[in-house]
């Protein structure tokens, strides 16, 4: 298979990942309008049987039916790719074990890193597709000779690069993101204009395998009864004093305010989770600020940054990109100092590094350091 960083040739086949949502539907429609040879695929990530009621989320069976109907509108081949086994192992099992370990994972990052981009690239090869297209709000920047670079989407509010840092570089070379150059309202408008069946489909904000956002329910289903993360434990202040009892640390995430004991002069927040002791540490807002972080399981989509290089970093979806100085960075991990302290740097979330609009790479936050005053 020819790997190229330039645009697809006229006859190159393109595999389009279609979730059944409006973004990927329009991606397919835009490619179809260009007269591309496209094949649609929808991943069946897990079985909804046993979950009551129809699913509103995007990757479920509704999604399959919607994707199929758009594919029929566009007269393109479409098939369903059953990835349940791999998805369960790579995404759901990780989600459960991360929560069990007191961290707050992002399954969408794992899904992109493994299920979508690793497994779909393999699938694209078997279908003789040189290219893979998705409906993500991000752009791939290609120059004649250099490797492809991942760039933020034009819609600042919808930019999804935070979820894409883990994809293999080889996938990036073949990736097409047709809606990355549009804003969400433009996508809706264009989908309406083309009368796509999914034009009015509401956006999904849920994790696809967590119905009604009840992630504790998912944990209860997968973890043994009486697992430490779902068993009673202690709220403590930073100085070790007992602040009350909680019903399982899996119900908490750093920065959370809901569900904490009341009666304090100022609002309290989760500062830290100590899984071994089943302790949830709480404190006032200022205790949330941290000035450094360490991330592991790193993946680089551009040159590994040099020590002392100043980059942008995003520590949470929707958070601003803030300046950070690289303390160290190697193939598998990195440490940065934040020029301005950030609140609620949460183990399990991603830290994504940017050079301007380009994604350099990212990793999973394992620890944060320093108080409100930068440590170096």
């Amino acid at each position, binding site marked *: 298979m020819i790997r190229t960083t330039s645009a697809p040739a006229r006859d190159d086949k393109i595999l389009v990942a279609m979730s059944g949502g409006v973004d990927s539907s329009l991606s397919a429609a835009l490619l179809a309008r260009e007269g591309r040879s496209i*094949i649609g695929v929808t991943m*069946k990530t897990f079985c909804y049987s046993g979950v009551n009621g129809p699913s509103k989320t995007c990757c479920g069976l509704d999604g399959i039916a919607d994707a199929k109907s758009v594919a029929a509108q566009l007269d393109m081949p479409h098939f*369903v790719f059953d990835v349940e086994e791999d998805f369960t192992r790579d995404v759901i099992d990780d989600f459960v074990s991360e929560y069990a370990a007191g961290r707050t994972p992002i399954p969408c990052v794992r899904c992109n890193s493994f299920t979508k981009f690793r497994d779909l690239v393999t699938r694209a090869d078997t279908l003789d597709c040189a290219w893979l297209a998705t409906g993500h709000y991000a752009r791939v920047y290609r120059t004649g000779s250099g490797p492809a670079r991942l760039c933020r989407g034009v819609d600042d509010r919808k930019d999804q690069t935070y979820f894409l840092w883990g994809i293999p570089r080889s996938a990036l070379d073949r990736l097409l993101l047709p809606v990355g150059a549009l804003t969400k309202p433009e996508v809706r408008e264009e989908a309406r204009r083309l009368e796509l069946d999914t034009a009015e489909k509401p956006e999904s904000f849920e994790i696809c395998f967590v119905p009604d956002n009840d992630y504790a329910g998912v944990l209860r289903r997968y973890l043994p009864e009486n697992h430490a993360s779902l068993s009673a434990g202690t709220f403590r202040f930073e100085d070790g004093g007992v602040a009350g009892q909680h019903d399982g640390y899996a119900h908490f995430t750093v920065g959370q305010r809901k569900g904490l004991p009341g009666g304090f002069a100022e609002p309290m927040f989760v500062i830290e989770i100590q899984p071994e002791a089943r302790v949830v540490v709480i404190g006032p807002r200022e205790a949330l600020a941290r000035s450094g972080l360490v991330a592991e399981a790193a993946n680089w989509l551009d040159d590994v940054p040099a020590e002392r290089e100043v980059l942008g970093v995003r520590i949470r979806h929707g958070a601003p990109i803030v300046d950070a100085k690289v303390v160290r960075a190697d193939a598998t991990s990195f440490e940065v100092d934040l020029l301005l302290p950030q609140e609620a740097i949460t183990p399990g979330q991603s830290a994504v590094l940017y050079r301007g609009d380009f994604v350099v790479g990212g990793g999973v936050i394992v620890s944060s350091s320093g108080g409100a005053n930068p440590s170096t």
Partner: protein
Amino acid sequence: MSQSPDTRRLYLDYAATCPMRLEVWRAMEAELEFSFNPASAHTLGRQAHRQLEIARGRVADLLSCDRASVYFTGGGTQSDNLAILGFSRAHDGQKPRVFVSQIEHKACTEAGARAESEGASLGIIPVDETGTIDLARLERELARDPDRPTLVSVMWANNEIGTVQPIDDVVALAHTHGAVVHTDAVQALGKVPVDLTRTPVDLLSATAHKLGGPVGIGILVCRPAVRLEPLSYGGGQERSMWPGTQNPVGATGFAAALDFAVTHQESEAERWRALRDHLESRVLADVPGARIHGRGAPSRLPHLVSVGIPACDSAAVLVSLDFEGIAVSGGSACGSDSGIGSSVVDALGGDIEAPYATVRFSFGHDTSRDDVDRAAEALARIAKRVLALAV
């Protein structure tokens, strides 16, 4: 597209639906002016009723059964459900038993599972590596508890791999033990001889769209001695077995399609058999590791070839064929959406480790040797590419 020299549509999925035949179209068109309610007492209603009964009579003649045994329904699934659930519900409180083969259509296995959840006992009769039912096992099961009301549901011919069951033997065995026999003949009609005088099944399901008729109409043949509880209730149409306004145009389409299929069955079967054998030998010669499901069975459908390719990704093969304009199914058309493998192929045993590609080719009246050659060439080329990329 430069990489696909020939992208003309090639339809080799007649077992999913046989496109409507012109004769059927014409027959239905002529009836459209009788689109009145057959239950109406006025002249127009009577004319519609007459068309419905003419169709019923033709169907009965073509199957060699009594016209009063023919009930029009909504299709194959509906008939299968009426037979299985109708039987178990009619014998509610008498500990009814339902036996189905391991490779029945979902319309039967799911109806059986439902019957079980309502209190019937459900037995699954295994098949051998050709998909042929284990008659000795069936006999042992039937002998175990002979006084309970018992239904044996064994499809006449399998939709995924084409195995034709020894249905005469099933009937003889079941009747010896006082059991009632239902057969899903959806795939058998028009492909193998179906004569209900020779093969006295008690219940038979069929649907028009596999025969070149319209979707949405089927029949259940039900002998007078068999007691069924209807699945729905209403104005008593179809002698209360399938109530709801009857469909004379659909019934006419069913009868016309069945007429053509039965009349041409013998000559078409001979032609298909030659195509089938040709396709199979080409596939076995050119596709690495390929096997033909059900090949050793004593009797098989003449128009259907089910190919298994170990270590090969099913969707990749099917989509690539579609991309070249060649329409086929995986295991069955009904399973195509699920993205999962075939339980029928699994039931045959052998090493069927994922990934495993199953490709079903099925022929119709216009399938030619050139078509078969084109399909065989495309399958060999695509399978080699997919296999080369397998990890």
